[in-house]
């Protein structure tokens, strides 16, 4: 049987609430900047320098949103959160392993023929846009709109029509 959508929506909203309640709103895309910055700092060692308690970088963007600090100390809430998202996906798959609805949906995904190149290029565009906007579907569309943030509402209103237009045009 197809599981009802209502508990799914309630659960999703509840998780976003719990995160604001305990720590801060959920957001993902900043950690892509931090991770690419960590890779960058392996290649060029002096990218982030510590001055007292502050971390600064000659790369201007790393001085935004505490990115420089996270590059120097990646073991923090937001980075570990990302590892949790990965594990949560795995646990979801295991938990619903025998659920007929999820089996059917996963079969559709296995037949998926999208090329690796397209996924890669899509990923480049996705994160370039997310960093420019200061957040993605998690940080802006969910967390931001929930708090009635003006920028997040504008973000969502721009995002959806364009995504719908492109999905219909590109087709599969």
């Amino acid at each position, binding site marked *: 049987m197809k599981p009802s*959508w209502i508990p799914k*929506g309630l*659960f*999703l*909203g*509840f*998780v976003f609430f719990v*995160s*604001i*309640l*305990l720590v*801060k*709103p*959920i957001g993902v895309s900043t950690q*892509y*900047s931090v*991770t690419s*910055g960590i890779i960058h700092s392996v290649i060029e060692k002096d990218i982030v320098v510590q001055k007292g308690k502050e971390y600064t970088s000659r790369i*201007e963007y790393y001085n935004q949103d505490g990115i420089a600090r996270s590059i120097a100390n990646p073991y923090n*809430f*937001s980075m*570990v959160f990302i590892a*949790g*998202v990965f594990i*949560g996906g795995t646990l*979801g*798959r295991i938990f*619903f392993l025998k659920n007929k609805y999820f089996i059917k949906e*996963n079969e559709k995904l296995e037949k*998926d023929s*999208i090329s*690796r190149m397209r*996924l*890669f290029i*899509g990923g*480049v565009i*996705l*994160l*370039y*846009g997310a960093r*420019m*906007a*200061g957040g993605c579907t998690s*940080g802006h569309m969910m*967390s931001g*709109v*929930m*708090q*009635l*943030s003006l*920028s997040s*509402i*504008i*973000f969502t209103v721009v*995002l959806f029509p*364009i*995504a719908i237009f492109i*999905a*219909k*045009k590109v087709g599969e």
Partner: protein
Amino acid sequence: MKHLFVDNMPLLGILLGILFGFALYYAGATNRIFIINMLKLKNLTLMKIILLGIGFGMVLTYLGMIFKIIPMEHFSIKVMNLGVIFGAGILGVGFGIIGLCPGTAIASFGAGYLKAIYVILGGLVGSFLFTLSYPVLKSIGLFEEIFGGKTSLIFISEKYNFLYEGTPWIGVFVGVIIIVISLALPYNVETKKRW
């Protein structure tokens, strides 16, 4: 037990991350075919789930504010600038092409859709390209604050601008309206079947 969480943020991070990844899988948001079918307006179930999630989260968050159970410093309103508008447009193009987002790509990879690794790798390249282009984008004024910068629709705290002072009950009310919209939205545009 309290200090185990309060003093150990990474532990809390992994637990919340797991909840979020699980919620994404449960909602079907880790399945890019399901997302693409929403964007093509063939199956709006995910749209209903997202709207219900936003509405329910908003009700809980504003109730949490009214009853002072959420510390005010936990709220975080993102800045408004032209980058939000152009960035949302660019993100929309990527979202429309692949049907995954930065977060769902990670949960999807965890759920066994191994091709999502290409989205994640592309994302690292994309965010690095943004880092490199940031000074130029900044110099053309893309990140100049507009509409008051960090602005919310109703008053949250002294830290943020607001359009209308109101009371947090308005947030609860708006949340309820979004929940009603999620219930009223048809499963798909043709059949208009709601339940």
